[in-house]
């Protein structure tokens, strides 16, 4: 009797093991070896990027055409979004669970927020690990062991562009430290030259400034994540220092007097026109600025150094990404197209067209010939995390966009801005409880 029972148990165990193995095998084969559909496939890709990588649209059209030629049954429609419309348009699509199959995301929280909301499928379920290993900065898009969106191109975030000709004319040396920058502001102002051109009306520049100035005061990205979740505070000296530095820039009249009137790109335009000595630009767009102004006249550097932390004097490095939406019928095709964007020929074409670095370590770096891009590439190789990607978008908008506007406009001072930031963070901890829980989990991967 006991023997019979033993045989039955053994059979059950074996059968279960076989079935489980078969199940696992079928699941793992699903990630990489799903048959490519042969019937008509229509995909929509909602994207952004022409704004910061001029030529991206032409490249994407070329890439879609090449992919459609390779797969005649696939049609890909691309929809270029505006800067202000990119996120709301996707959120509206996500609410209806209807819309693009491939969606553009900035890195970090901009990618993971939608993963947490169930709006995307992890790309690591469809793109082989061996392929994903080549994609740069994928760590910031990783949560719970999965990569949620696939890096497309690197965004060196954000270099200071210098008009060497303007500085030389004013007899001012290129400032590389904070005191030198403040002194340069005083001297340039005395000569009637705007030291740094910017535009903050649309808010985005506030997030940039927080990242490139604020990063210098922290010791690790955990400082920001902890302040977000309430383990630390935004009024702590490490994080509040950003506001103090920004006030110093304001008090030394480092910015154009109409910074609150201008949008980000309008501010940069002032620099291109030679009306300002410096500006802050997207690293992906440096080629455009250099070509416009002249190779000999432009210098590229990180924000002058004031801190002693590990990120001081470094340039942030993040990658702009594309993800697969949770409602798409053809995730495998979307993933295949994303991988197609990373083939060597497409990567070279991308760099030649836009001047932005593909987010892939297989990219042929010999193509980099422009001196400014070489500087940028070396800075990015030893780059630091980009702070704005590690705070909730609501905090970014209500604190770093809005309070930076108020501070630069002279309505508030640094302590008030820091206090307002903490107050907003406290409220977000109350209203965004699910997001906070995920933030806590996410911060664990940066300990």
């Amino acid at each position: 009797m006991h023997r019979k029972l033993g045989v039955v148990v053994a059979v059950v165990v074996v059968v279960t093991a076989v079935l489980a193995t078969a199940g696992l095998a079928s699941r793992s084969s699903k990630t990489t070896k799903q048959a490519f559909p042969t019937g008509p496939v229509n995909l929509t890709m909602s994207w952004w990027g022409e704004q910061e990588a001029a030529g991206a649209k032409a490249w994407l059209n070329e890439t879609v055409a090449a992919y459609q030629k390779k797969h005649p049954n696939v049609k890909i429609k691309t929809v270029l979004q505006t800067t202000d419309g990119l996120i709301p348009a996707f959120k509206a699509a996500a609410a209806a669970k209807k819309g693009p199959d491939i969606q553009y995301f900035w890195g970090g929280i901009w990618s993971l927020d939608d993963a947490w909301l169930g709006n995307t499928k992890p790309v690591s379920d469809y793109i082989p690990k061996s392929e994903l290993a080549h994609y740069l900065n994928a760590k910031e898009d990783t949560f719970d062991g999965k990569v949620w969106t696939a890096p497309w191109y690197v965004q060196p975030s954000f270099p200071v562009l210098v008009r060497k000709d303007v500085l030389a004319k004013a007899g001012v040396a290129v400032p590389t430290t904070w005191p030198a920058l403040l002194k340069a502001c005083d001297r340039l102002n005395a000569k009637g030259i705007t030291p740094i051109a910017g535009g903050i009306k649309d808010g985005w520049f506030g997030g940039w400034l927080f990242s490139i100035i604020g990063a210098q005061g922290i010791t690790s990205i955990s400082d920001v994540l902890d302040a977000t979740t309430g383990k630390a505070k935004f009024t702590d000296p490490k994080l509040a220092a950003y506001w103090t530095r920004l006030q110093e820039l304001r008090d030394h009249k480092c910015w154009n007097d109409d910074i609150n009137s201008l949008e980000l790109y309008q501010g940069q335009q002032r620099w291109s026109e030679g009306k300002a000595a410096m500006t802050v630009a997207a690293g992906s767009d440096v080629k455009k600025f250099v070509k416009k102004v002249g190779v000999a006249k432009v210098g590229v550097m990180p924000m002058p150094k004031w801190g002693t932390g590990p990120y001081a004097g470094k340039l942030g490095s993040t990658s702009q990404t594309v993800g697969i939406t949770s409602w798409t019928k053809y995730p495998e095709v979307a993933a295949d197209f994303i991988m197609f964007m990373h083939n060597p020929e497409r990567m070279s074409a991308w760099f030649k067209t836009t001047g932005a670095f593909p987010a892939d370590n297989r990219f042929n770096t010999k193509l980099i010939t422009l001196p400014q891009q070489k500087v940028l590439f070396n800075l990015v190789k030893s780059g630091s995390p980009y702070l704005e990607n590690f705070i909730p978008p609501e905090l970014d908008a209500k604190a770093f966009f809005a309070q930076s506007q108020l501070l630069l406009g002279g309505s508030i001072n640094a302590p008030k801005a820091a206090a307002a930031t903490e107050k907003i963070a406290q409220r977000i901890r109350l209203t965004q409880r699910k997001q906070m829980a995920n933030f806590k989990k996410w911060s664990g991967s940066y300990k």
Partner: protein
Amino acid sequence: MTSDTAALSRPRRRRRFRPGRFEPALWIAPAVAIVVFVFGYSMFELVKTSLLFDGAWTTENFRVTWTDPTFRTALGHNARLLLAVPILVATSLLLAILLFEGLRGWRFHRWALFLPYILAIPVIGVVFGQLLQFNGLVNQLLRAVGFGGLAQDWLGQPRWALWTMTAVIVLRELGFGIVLFLARLLSVSSDIFEAGRMDGARFFRLHRRITIPQLSGVIIFYVVVEAITMVSWVFNYVYVMTNGQGGPGDATQVTELYIYQTAFQYQSPEIASAAAVTLFAVTLVLIAMFFRVQRRAGIGLDA
């Protein structure tokens, strides 16, 4: 013809359906059905979402929303925008009367005053956004004529931004009032004005005693429409002129923008729903107040 055949050929008396006092309700029933069909479900969902907090039925979302300083600021700004309504009414009434009186070049003036109203709000927003920059055309003109001290960052300074926005809204909405009042004025019998003039009434007396009473229904209508506009229809202006931020800071934040940002940028549909229900309630109260005033004053829209 026999009496039998005569009886047969007599038309049979049909019983007619007489809805009586329900007749008006029957006539508007199709429209009500469409409104219920279009808005009923969404209103139901909106209220339902606003009452769900972590899966439980509660008013917690309302408490969270009403204690949000940004929401309060937004509501306060909508209330401040309401101050523009009397300005709108007075200005458009005055301009309509001037046009009615045959002001020299009135055709051109009528066209110029109505033009902003037919332009799309984004166009107005972009144009004024450019004009009102710190180094924009308005300030350049002020500096050129020696009033540089008056030059301000009209949309970039918190203390000016909302008033500047209000001025732009007034400028555009003015055209609607002018056309509305002018159309009503043109339908008033000229005999009434003639009689007034013969009795010795001059400009102000004439219009105070004749025009305003004649236009009272239209004025009330315009007040209601503009009040609703200021409370729940200014999103486009704010979105375009501040790049969707409601800035600088929250200086131009309004309730609609708050709802939009909370729902679609910050993914808090429950809070957004609570704010939307609050806005709906405020608008309803406002409409009810206006109609009560209208009834008490005994003014009909046909006036």
